């Protein structure tokens, strides 16, 4: 069984590696926008296939271990959750690509106004991703609950960003194309935060054996 423990450890490291690749994609995509650096954005788009390949590899490894080791209890929860976490991470990677694509388009246009909401959202979101994965590795403390709470901050900033841009669009309809693209970027970040929340919820399930998705107050679970 020591071999199985080694295999689980290796799998955990792969999930973490995927997590750090996704985190970098989010950071670079937002920086490419804020710093108006389209080369950085192209890099994010080019590297997405590495994230996809690792996701497929992790999925295959999970199926292999379920078939060969017939895991029970916490091992079973770990493997099924690893598969789901991986899907969330891969989708975050796709959203980072979407941000990079909008960045390339927006970098072609004059700057509407300095980016304030988006870097703030990116900062919170990246921390949510990092904390949810930390919780996945180190165990379920208060960390996943904090991640779930912080999702509200990202949601609020999405609305704030949207309202500010709508106000500008009303004043000057010529900026609509650029402004709408900026609302997209915020929406992508908001979706990334949702995926991080999913991971946090699944980590709680993995360690506590309780499903807290779709309940009003996760602290009670």
């Amino acid at each position, binding site marked *: 069984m020591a071999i199985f423990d080694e295999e689980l450890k290796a799998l955990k490291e792969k999930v973490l590696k995927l997590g750090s690749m996704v985190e970098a994609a989010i950071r670079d995509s937002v920086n490419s926008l804020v710093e108006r650096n389209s080369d950085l954005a192209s890099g994010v788009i080019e590297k997405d296939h590495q994230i996809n390949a690792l996701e497929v590899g992790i999925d295959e490894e999970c199926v292999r271990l379920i078939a060969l080791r*017939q895991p029970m*209890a916490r091992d*079973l*929860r770990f493997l099924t959750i690893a598969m789901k976490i991986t899907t969330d991470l891969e989708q975050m990677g796709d959203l980072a690509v979407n941000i990079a694509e909008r960045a390339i388009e927006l970098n072609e246009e004059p700057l509407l106004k300095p980016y304030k909401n988006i870097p703030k959202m990116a900062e919170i979101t990246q921390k949510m991703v990092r904390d949810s994965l930390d919780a996945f590795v180190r165990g379920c403390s208060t960390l996943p609950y904090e991640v779930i709470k912080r999702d509200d901050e990202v949601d609020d900033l999405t609305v704030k960003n949207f309202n500010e841009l709508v106000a500008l669009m009303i004043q000057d309809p010529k900026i609509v194309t650029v402004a709408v693209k900026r609302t997209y970027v915020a929406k992508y970040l908001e979706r990334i935060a949702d995926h991080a929340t999913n991971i946090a919820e699944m980590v709680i399930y993995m360690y506590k054996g309780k499903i807290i998705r779709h309940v009003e107050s996760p602290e009670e679970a």
Partner: protein
Amino acid sequence: MVENKHIFEIKDFSIYYGNFMAVKKVNLNIEAHKITAIIGPSGCGKSTLLRSLNRMNDLITSSWVDGQVLFKGIDIYQKDTDVIELRKRVGMVFQKPNPFPSSVYENVAYGPQLRGIKKKSQLDEIVENALMRADLWKEVRDKLHESGLSLSGGQMQRLCISRSLAQEPEVLLFDEPTSALDPISTANIENLLQELQKTVTIVIVTHNMQQAARVSDYTAFMYLGEMVEFGETDKLFVNPQNKLTEEYITGRFG
């Protein structure tokens, strides 16, 4: 009066071999028409506990018990218990198929004959019915008078199940019933258990955790004579509450 859904109620029940306490103050309820699996490492007392449910341990002279085993509300360890009658109502199937060295027909008809049934047509009906219930009839209908020992391992085990069923038991106890069988015969027996559950209550001791997970409604985990955890099978295997159970079922024991 509402009928008690627990056919067996085991209360503060201990079993000793001389001075050795093999089963320690176990409390366990067995629900009627369900399959209850008892799992645990070798020597944990699971077979001893199983055998106590129809007093098979009486055959071991040094063994004695403390506490109660209620079968339909009546303590089977009372002095006036008719043990033969008890074993008719609570049958047992063992690890190694052990047909009598006689024909398929006689293996199944033997019990009813002992009960005094002599009419050929009635015995024929009982034999056919018991073999059908054990899903063996189609395979042996043309060789009813051949030796039971000429059958394959899986068939012999189903013959032993037929032999028990001919006694119209209310409970069947299985002690590692498939550990001597190949995977296909094992699957046949497992399917059969689920079918039999409609008419009898089943308690099964197994070393094979996947088997317990596949067939049972409830699982009891025993260790060093103690009942460590008992619960619904799907909960126990996905999210056990006790650390020892967790270690045992994930193979990280000791």
